[in-house]
Structure formats: structure tokens, C-alpha cells
């Protein structure tokens, strides 16, 4: 689940409290729904159970809100794997693309290979949809496909804009 990956991404920058994680998550993804504390602690508990995070310190007393969490080696592997894997294009993939790209950039990783691989996968899907549309028997079918195509196109344009912004940033840093 991707909220977990974003939290792992924050922890890859250094150990943090649940409170910091929530704040950083919401700051990184300003367009997304803010995380509830309950969700943060539930996710951390699951990550701890799966060995992806560890308790780095507890500050006086018990309870998750006093605990500092750190990413484990297993957690790092899971995170890097997530960052490198393009998403299956579809109506629910869009937010995940944003999560992944922003997380990679925050970790100063080169997001371009991911963006390029994702573009290739999206365009492949677009090719299939356009082929389907060209073969569509009637205008109703074409109209229905238009809706999917236009949304996929929005993701593709976002991927291109992201790649252009990353390239600009790279040029500015050179």
C-alpha cells in the first residue's frame, strides 16, 4: 500500500515520530487527502510487524506517539523496489505516480528512468485503446473509449511535465 511507501520514503531521510511523518506526508503531497493519525500509527504498526521499520527510541513512557521509528534494511529494499517499478496504467494509478515521483526526488534520486518507463507503459496502453477505438463499431463505443483515453492522456501529460521539470532542475544544478 502506497501510504506505507511514502512513509518509508520519509524515514529513509532519517528517523521520525509518527507526528513528523504525518506532517511531512501532507507537505509532500499537497494535492492528496491529509493523513489521519490513526492511519499513520496503523501503518507503522504493520510496517514494524513486517520488519520494514524498527523502533529507534522511545521517549519516556509508552505508546506510539512517544516512539521514534527508523527504516530497516528490508524497508529500504521495499522502498527502492517500489520507486523503480512503473504502475499499471489505469484510473487508480494516477495518485501513485505522484507519490512515487515526489518520494524519489525528495531522496535526491534520479526520477527520469521511472518517468520514462512509466511513459512507455502508458503509451502502450494508449496504443491499445486507440486501436480499439479505431475498430469500434459505433459512435457510442468511441465516446465511451474517449473518456478512458482522455484520462490516460492527462496522466501522460503529467509524466511529460514532470520529466521536463526534473530536466530543468538538473540543468539548473549543473
Amino acid at each position: 500500500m502506497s501510504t506505507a511507501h511514502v512513509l518509508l520514503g520519509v524515514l529513509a531521510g532519517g528517523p521520525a515520530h509518527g507526528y513528523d511523518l504525518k506532517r511531512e506526508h501532507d507537505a509532500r503531497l499537497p494535492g492528496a487527502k491529509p493523513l489521519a493519525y490513526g492511519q499513520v500509527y496503523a501503518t507503522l504498526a504493520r510496517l514494524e510487524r513486517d520488519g520494514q521499520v524498527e523502533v529507534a527510541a522511545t521517549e519516556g513512557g509508552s505508546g506510539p506517539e512517544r516512539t521514534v521509528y527508523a527504516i530497516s534494511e528490508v524497508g529500504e529494499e521495499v522502498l527502492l523496489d517500489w520507486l523503480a517499478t512503473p504502475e499499471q496504467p489505469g484510473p487508480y494509478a494516477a495518485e501513485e505516480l505522484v507519490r512515487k515521483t515526489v518520494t524519489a526526488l525528495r531522496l535526491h534520486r534520479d526520477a527520469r528512468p521511472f518517468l520514462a518507463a512509466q511513459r512507455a507503459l502508458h503509451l502502450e496502453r494508449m496504443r491499445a485503446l486507440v486501436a480499439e477505438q479505431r475498430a469500434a463499431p459505433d459512435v457510442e463505443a468511441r465516446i465511451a473509449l474517449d473518456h478512458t483515453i482522455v484520462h490516460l492522456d492527462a496522466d501522460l501529460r503529467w509524466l511529460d511535465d514532470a520529466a521536463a521539470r526534473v530536466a530543468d532542475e538538473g540543468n539548473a544544478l549543473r
Partner: protein
Amino acid sequence: MTSTDGSGATALLRAHALHKSFGRTEALRGASVEVAAGEVVALTGPSGSGKSTLLLCLAGVLRPEAGSVAYDGSRLDDLPEATRTRLRRREFGLVLQFGQLVPELSAVQNVMVPLLLERHGRAAARTAALAWLDRLGAAGLADALPGDLSGGESQRVAMARALVTGPSVVFADEPTGSLDRVSGEDVMEVLVSTAQSTGAAVVLVTHDNRVAAYADREVVLRDGAVDDPAVVR
């Protein structure tokens, strides 16, 4: 006559490590691309990445300063101007964003031009031109002047002009760039299905992902070369 890139496949058109500058602007910096017979390839990438320059080098309109362009096994960039022009007229068709029709000539006369340049008789040229206009759904426009045509109509006429000589490769630079999506779709449908039925390859430049999706393959350009995200900046 062996291929040095190890691809094995016989490309109809092969550009290798092209460099092309305009003054101090390096439009192409080592761009390479191959096109197989009958293949539809989309050149995409940000503005200024060199798409149009690459297309014009492939089409033999521009001559690169370094690198090679081979068509059907022979070097295009080495040919004397006159030979290259002749080959281009016979083997290639070119469609640009705004049709680029001769404004003083009617639609059918525009389509006849490439045939007349190839010394076909007027009557035969006219018959062939009318047949192509008809095939592209533009028969009714034969006597119209370009100024009176809509964007989509102009593109159909420009495509008839590009296809009338039976080219092996059709080059199209943003053929739908000035059209709305549904008109653009019509133009692409006509271009791709006609190319398919004549066996012509198509190289097209586009900013539109839906248009790129008509191609069998996409080549992404960035900074004058084919984008290789594996190269760390």
C-alpha cells in the same frame, strides 16, 4: 555492405549519430534512429529537442554536419544535391503542420505538382491526383483554392500530394497540430490506413499522445539525441 550496429534487421531508413547546428544552436547532438519498411514511427519530445530537424535530415531536406543517413542501403547525405532531390521526390512524401499548399493553385493542381515535376503528362497527372483526393475523402475539394479550405481539408490535400507519387516513406511534421482532436483523428486515420495499404513507412512528429499512439513505435528526443534515461546526469 554489413550493418555495423548489430541490429541485424534491415532498416529502410537509418540515421546514425547525426549532428546539426544552426549558428550556435546544436539542434541535433548524436541522434540515431531507424525505420523499417512499412513501419509507423512517432518522434516525440519537448519543444526544441530536435524533432523537426531530425525529420528533415531523414527526409534529405537538411544535410547533417556529421553522422550518416542511409536510405535503402545507400548514403543520402553524400549524394549530390540534384540526385538527392530526385530520390526525395520519387521515394518520399512530406506533410507539414499547415499543409503548405501553393496558394495560387487549386487543390487538384497542388496534388499534381509532384507528378509534373517527375515529367508525367498533365492528363495522367490530373487523373491520378483526382483519384488520390477521392481516396482521402476530398474529391469535392478538387477545384477549391487552399485559402478556402479548413485545416483538416488542407491536411487531406497535403496528404494526397505526399502520397500521389507512391512514396516508400511519408514524413509528417505535426500533421494534426492545427486541428481539434476529432479532426486530427480523421487525418491520422487516413494517413495511417493509407500508408498501411500502400506499404509506406510513416515518420511523424507530434506533441499529441493520442497521435503518437497511432504509431507502432515511439522515439523520444531530448536535447538533440534519443532520450536515454539510463544515462545519469
